[in-house]
């Protein structure tokens, strides 16, 4: 799988002095600055409640910053209209911590959802989806529904759904949180494979053991509402 080429050659994501507060409370995130380059691999880490998911939501634009500038794929998000936002989201893939699979749909239908949303005819993507499901080891479960799957199978389905449209940037929120170390390691190798094929990866995790498996990966560490970039 090849990720789509980055048209301007710059950062995929850039945060400049971003701050976020809820109401009159103190800032949850203060002066956050970092960037994500094409085809890069990084972990976003920090203690539970430090704001990892919040940063992912800021990238996905389901939250707006209180101050600072966020640029996604070279576009200032403050200037984005709804159609522009939709277009940006179509270039990203997201793996949720709680999977967010649609329980009433089959595994095949769940994974094919991004194509369906984009209005593509089923005949144009069916083979592609089935091939991906086989590649991640779910080829025998295409007609199964999420409630009968194990945690690992659900997680792989969620990853397949995020990947199927070949995003330029993949965001994963605690993707191995509910898995045993062996399965977590296998999923991590899957992310590495994806990265090699051109997708930039940002994994939010507090699992130090997991991060140590990828030598040389950049770490964005959240501590006391601030972010430090290591590596």
């Amino acid at each position, binding site marked *: 799988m090849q990720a789509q080429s980055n048209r301007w050659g710059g950062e995929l994501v850039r945060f400049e002095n971003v701050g976020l507060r809820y109401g009159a409370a103190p800032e949850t995130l203060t002066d956050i600055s970092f960037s994500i380059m094409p085809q890069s691999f990084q972990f976003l880490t920090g203690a539970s409640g430090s704001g990892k998911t919040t940063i992912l939501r800021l990238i996905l634009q389901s939250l707006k910053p209180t101050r600072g500038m966020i640029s996604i794929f070279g576009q200032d998000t403050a200037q984005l209209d709804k159609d522009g936002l939709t277009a940006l989201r179509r270039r990203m893939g997201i793996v949720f911590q709680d999977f967010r699979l649609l329980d009433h*749909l089959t595994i095949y239908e769940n994974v094919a959802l991004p194509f369906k949303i984009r209005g593509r005819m089923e005949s144009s993507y069916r083979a592609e989806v089935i091939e991906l499901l086989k590649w991640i080891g779910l080829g025998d479960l295409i007609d199964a529904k999420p409630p009968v799957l194990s945690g690992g199978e659900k997680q792989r389905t969620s990853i397949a759904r995020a990947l199927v449209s070949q995003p330029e940037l993949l965001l994963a929120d605690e993707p191995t949180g509910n898995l045993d170390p062996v399965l977590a390691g296998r999923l991590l190798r899957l992310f590495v494979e994806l990265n090699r094929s051109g997708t930039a990866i940002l994994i939010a995790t507090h699992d130090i053991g997991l991060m140590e498996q990828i030598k040389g990966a950049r770490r964005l560490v959240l501590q006391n509402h601030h972010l430090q970039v290591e590596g």
Partner: protein
Amino acid sequence: MSSTDFHNQRSVWQSFLNRFSTDSLVAPDPLTDRTLVAVIFILTFIAALTAGLVLFGSAATARWQVLLSSEVTVQLRPQPGRAIDADLNRAAEYLKQVQGVTKVRIYSQDETLRMLEPWLGPASSLGGLSIPRMIAVEINPDAPPDIQAVTQQLAKDIPGTVVDDHRSWTKRLTKLGNTLVVASALGLILVLTATALAIVFATRGAMVGNREIVEVFYFMGADDRYIARVFQRHFFSLGLRGGILGACLALIILGALRFMIAGSDGLKDIFGFGAADPLSSVGVAIIIAIVAVALFVSFLASVVSRFTVHSTLSRLV
């Protein structure tokens, strides 16, 4: 058949079924969905029955009006010193000559007493009481005679003559018919408003229940129009189900009414249908109206849910 063949066939069949389920992107909530279908069913039934009864009532009223306007009654009150039978014959002879009169019939003394029996008791108890006599005159409703001229002529020639062209009844019937139509139209509007409100609440409930799914759609690049379409399709399907059930029940009830009237001469007379098939003239119109109500309710469900989704999305996510 080997187990592999069986498995393959099952997979093909499963895939075939899945093709039909891919449209239902809103997670089904059996309790809420069934309740909404039941509400739409009841409201469609009331709306369809109202529409059917309006058409049926209008047809019956029109028939009554035709019957009333095709007959004139001439009443002769006994006058001292005059032979009422001779006056009746003279009046009848005159009426037969009038242009636009198609039939003249004098009600005999016995027939008149029988007609009065329910109010005045048996003829024997009336003794020698003088009672008015009646001439039934059938006229051509398309080219009616000049009733005013006839009235004046009869009053001049035969004292004690009263001509009743049922005008006051026709006016009252028209008023009644119009009132019925206006009241039913208001009833229909109220029922459809109640349907729309039920769908608004159901859509909001479904959106809150599917909040996470809506968020997933957004993150995968769905826009508001796509999400609105997903809910619209879901509620159109529920509306259509409720609408078809309501329309079917309304058709059954009106069909039963038709057979009840068709099987009873008394009811036929009451509704003014005579020997004709009571619903033949309006039957097709009623069926079309009921089907139209069911389709309109489905359309309403679809449009209302779409607008509700658009107005709720910004607050939800």
